[in-house]
């Protein structure tokens, strides 16, 4: 082999290695920065104060429980709406729709994913929230429910697009075998194709949830941002304030190095830890499932 080829190959190797590791380095740096800016909050504010239910930082009320609850309600609501719709849409596009419908539908779903979230937030604010207020007779349409609906609209395109790819990649002969054994079309989809595409579908759902948790602009615009501690199920139809919206709304004007500043970074740490837990749980789940389905189908 000629030496120039070996040389260029080793350079490419190094470059790929660097890009691979850089993602880890960036995550590490971000985590270090978050910790160094957020941990001082634990010295300046007693931990019990974080567990209070009032968030009013300009008078030193730093209870983050209402924000945590707000994020949880809005994200869970979005997942409950987005996962079934997204999954069923993907099944329809991949398994049932005619090729012509499929060619028409998929780009449209992907176009929805291309909308800037601030545009969706604006529509939610001016149109959807007023419609919801009248439809369910609420005092105000700026509520967790409106936020969850729009977050679902944001989470659906990645769920549809990636699960459709995963379903599409299931070999034709699996379906043929199932149909030959007398299974109906629905039984084939539900018991054969979907389990075979399981890991791809779970990745799709995780990515969708990831977009919903991290989304900031929409929740800042349509959830009303009132840091209220939920007391019952009606909290879904009340105004709420999420952690991301709090950081976005307050970070711009806060004095660098103040207690409020450190507490905002502490909220960032909480968000980071939640995202980490969700990802780790999901990936172990996907990993285990993949092994079992591979065993069955091989």
């Amino acid at each position, binding site marked *: 082999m000629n030496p120039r080829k070996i040389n260029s190959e080793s350079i490419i190797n190094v470059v790929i290695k660097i890009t691979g590791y850089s993602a880890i380095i960036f995550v590490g740096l971000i985590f270090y920065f978050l910790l160094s800016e957020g941990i001082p909050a634990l010295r300046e504010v007693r931990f019990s104060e974080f567990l209070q239910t*009032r968030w*009013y*930082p*300009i*008078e030193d009320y730093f209870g983050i429980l*209402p924000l945590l609850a707000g994020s949880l309600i809005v994200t869970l609501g979005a997942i409950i709406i987005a996962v079934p719709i997204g999954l069923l849409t993907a099944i329809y596009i991949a398994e049932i729709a005619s090729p012509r419908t499929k060619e028409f539908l998929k780009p449209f779903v992907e176009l929805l994913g291309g909308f800037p979230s601030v545009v969706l937030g604006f529509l939610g*604010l*001016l149109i959807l*929230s*007023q419609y919801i*207020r009248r439809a369910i007779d609420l*005092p*105000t*349409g*700026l509520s967790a429910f409106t936020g969850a609906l729009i977050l679902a609209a944001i989470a659906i395109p990645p769920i549809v697009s990636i699960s459709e790819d995963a379903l599409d990649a299931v070999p034709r002969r699996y379906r043929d075998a199932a149909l030959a054994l007398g299974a109906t079309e629905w039984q084939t989809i539900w018991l054969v194709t979907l389990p075979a595409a399981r890991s791809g579908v779970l990745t799709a759902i995780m990515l969708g949830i990831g977009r919903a948790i991290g989304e900031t602009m929409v929740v*800042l*615009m349509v959830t*009303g*941002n*009132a*840091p*209220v*501690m939920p007391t019952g199920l009606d909290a879904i139809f*009340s*105004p709420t*304030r999420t952690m991301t919206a709090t950081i976005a*709304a*307050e970070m*711009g*004007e*806060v004095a660098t190095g103040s207690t409020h500043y450190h507490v905002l970074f502490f909220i960032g740490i909480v968000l980071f830890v939640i995202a980490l837990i969700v990802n780790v749980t999901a990936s172990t789940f996907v990993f285990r499932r993949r092994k079992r389905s591979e065993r069955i189908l091989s």
Partner: protein
Amino acid sequence: MVNLALAWAERYHQNSPETNLAVTGGGSGTGIASLINKTTDIANASRRIKDEEIDNAESNGISPTEFIVARDAIAVIVNPDNPVEELTLQQLSDIYSGKINNWNEVGGEDRTIVRLSRETNSGTHVYFLEQVLRLGEKENKTLFAQNTLLLPSSEVIGGEIRENPNAIGYDGLGYVTPDMKVIAVSDSRSEDAQFIFPSAETVNNGTYPIARDLYMYTAGEPTGTTKQYMEWIFSNEAQEIVTDLGFVPILTP
């Protein structure tokens, strides 16, 4: 107020490019401290200079000269369909602190009150907290009701007010548009107070209760370039910028 100072400085620099102005934000206290430390020629402040600040300045050989350069009024706004016309400061305080929760308690329809406010980082929020919720009393620790909607901009507040008959909001007088209904406010602290609508006139003659003066301070009587600049501030051109930014201009008699 930093936006106003920036807009003035920009326009003035366009008019006379030989004058260079630099504007720094940080709050009224920062500006006045810089004036005392002689690091600035003019301090902008959205509050009157305190006595101890004057003492500090004088012990540093400076006698601050005060100019009221513009006024800032907060209008209380509701949906045009809301029959309520007027509220006292005490009623506003009770509404925003959560003691009054239904419009029928202040002469309106049987509707839940939805309270709208600017975000806590806005100067308007803090001013409304101090002057309305706490009625200007220093030891008063009243807070906004927890279900007060904290909205990120005047546009969002305006949008909700226009559409929602349950809502009450407040914002700088300049941000009020004709499709919102402005509430007349009376100062419940004085006995013969009347319900007053905010306008350039009622703000300037001091009868509208939720308004404040915006100040500029110079070290001693201004001279040279500073003097020219201060004279320009009271010109029509500079006061038009005041209106454009949502503040109330000084009326020159």
